[in-house]
């Protein structure tokens, strides 16, 4: 479990996160939702320790990351996998080498064992046929999947996914959502997902944190989300007519 307590974060005097507290649960998909520019990425990077927070605490199963020395932080980071908004695959390496990169850096397995592990992860995301291609030669969805494979290759305890399905078609994004959820349950990972995709929210929202203009304004799950009485949240989620209809149907008990 990751506990976020009263986190504030600003850049050059401009405050982005205001006093955010939330519990992110183990073995569950924890969703951070909010409008574009509301501070989701900043929150995720702060929790992951890429941004230093101004004040507050972030506890990884009781371990406070702002008090860690750099070598402790580096050890913790081997338990973290991250999928970035733009995939962030190393473009000088092939898909296979990208996935093997963390292994080469941090494991003392033999070359064959590493290769086997990389193949296993790529198989898991159904990408074995792109093994020897470079990131620029594969599609956006494939890049996302390769990045997922890289993020899970070291068996992380904590998995961060920044908009895993932005720019993907509904079918592929559903596949990716389900894949992440499956992995989360299978390996009991604390998974944090940023999204503004409402399909994902309904599909995998086991613990949803809603961020509005840098403030946390609601937390709950995908059944509670129909009746929140939170105007900002309703405006975000039920923005389209389709979702308005779904909401109505839900309230009528269909």
């Amino acid at each position: 479990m990751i506990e976020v307590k009263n986190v504030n974060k600003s850049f050059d005097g401009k405050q982005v996160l205001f006093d955010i507290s939330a519990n992110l649960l183990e073995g569950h998909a924890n969703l951070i939702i909010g409008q574009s520019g509301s501070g989701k990425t900043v929150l995720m990077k702060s929790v992951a320790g890429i941004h230093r927070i101004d004040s507050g605490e972030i506890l990884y199963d009781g371990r406070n990351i702002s008090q860690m020395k750099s070598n402790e932080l580096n050890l913790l980071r081997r338990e973290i996998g991250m999928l970035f908004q733009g995939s962030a695959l190393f473009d000088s390496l092939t898909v296979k080498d990208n996935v093997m990169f963390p292994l080469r850096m941090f494991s003392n397995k033999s070359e064959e064992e590493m290769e086997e592990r990389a193949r296993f992860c790529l198989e898991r995301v159904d990408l074995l046929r792109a093994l020897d291609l470079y990131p620029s030669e594969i599609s956006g969805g494939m890049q996302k999947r390769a990045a997922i494979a890289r993020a899970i290759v070291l068996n992380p305890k904590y998995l961060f996914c920044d908009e895993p399905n932005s720019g993907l078609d509904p079918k592929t994004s559903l596949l990716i959502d389900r894949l992440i959820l499956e992995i989360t349950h299978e390996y009991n990972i604390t998974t944090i997902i940023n999204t503004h995709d409402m399909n994902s929210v309904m599909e995998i929202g086991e613990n949803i944190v809603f961020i509005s203009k840098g403030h946390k304004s609601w937390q709950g799950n995908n059944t509670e989300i129909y009746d929140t009485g939170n105007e900002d949240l309703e405006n975000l989620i039920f923005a389209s007519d389709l979702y308005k209809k779904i909401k109505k149907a839900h309230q009528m008990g269909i």
Partner: protein
Amino acid sequence: MFGKQYVRELHKQGINSLPIVCIISVFIGAVICIQMRINTESPFLPSQLTGYATRETMILEFSSAILCLILAGKVGSNIASEIGTMRITEQIDALDIMGVNSANYLILPKILAFVTMIPCLVTFSITTGLLGGFGVALFTEMITPMEYEQGIQYSFLPYSIQYSIEKSLVFAFIVTSIASYYGYTVKGGAREVGKASTNAVVNSSVIILLFDVMLTKLLLS
């Protein structure tokens, strides 16, 4: 991992720079030879002067300082834009979150590789430059190859080669570290990467020139 990265950089910055170094040095060597000949054509000056002056110009200034200014354009902009692009596409964040020391992993092999390669590039440039001058002697009537050869052997101080290489080591460090700094600290998008690459080239050129004056004063007088 580090070794692999280092070898890749040796190849990219060293071997891949050989063609441009060769072309520029041959032509500058030839031009300097011609100009020296024209300017020193007088019955009171020995004809060996042309070869001598060509050699001194190449060794003392062109093959170290000017060459590094040119390579600041090639290698410096390449490094700044490569690291800068990695920064804006979150590849550096990805390294950091894995617990890899990104600065170490990305920058150190580049600096070490270029500093390793620069003595070879300088020596190569001196050689090809002198061959350029020899081409002039061979294919024109301005001086005979014999006179040119005597000229480039006249009163040769091995120390000047050492001086040239020492200078170039400093310049190589300046080019790569400044370019890495600008690339690593990029914020924003493609426009900022372009700006970082320009800044890297301009600033490292200016600093090279400053150090050129200081080192020349220190090492030669």
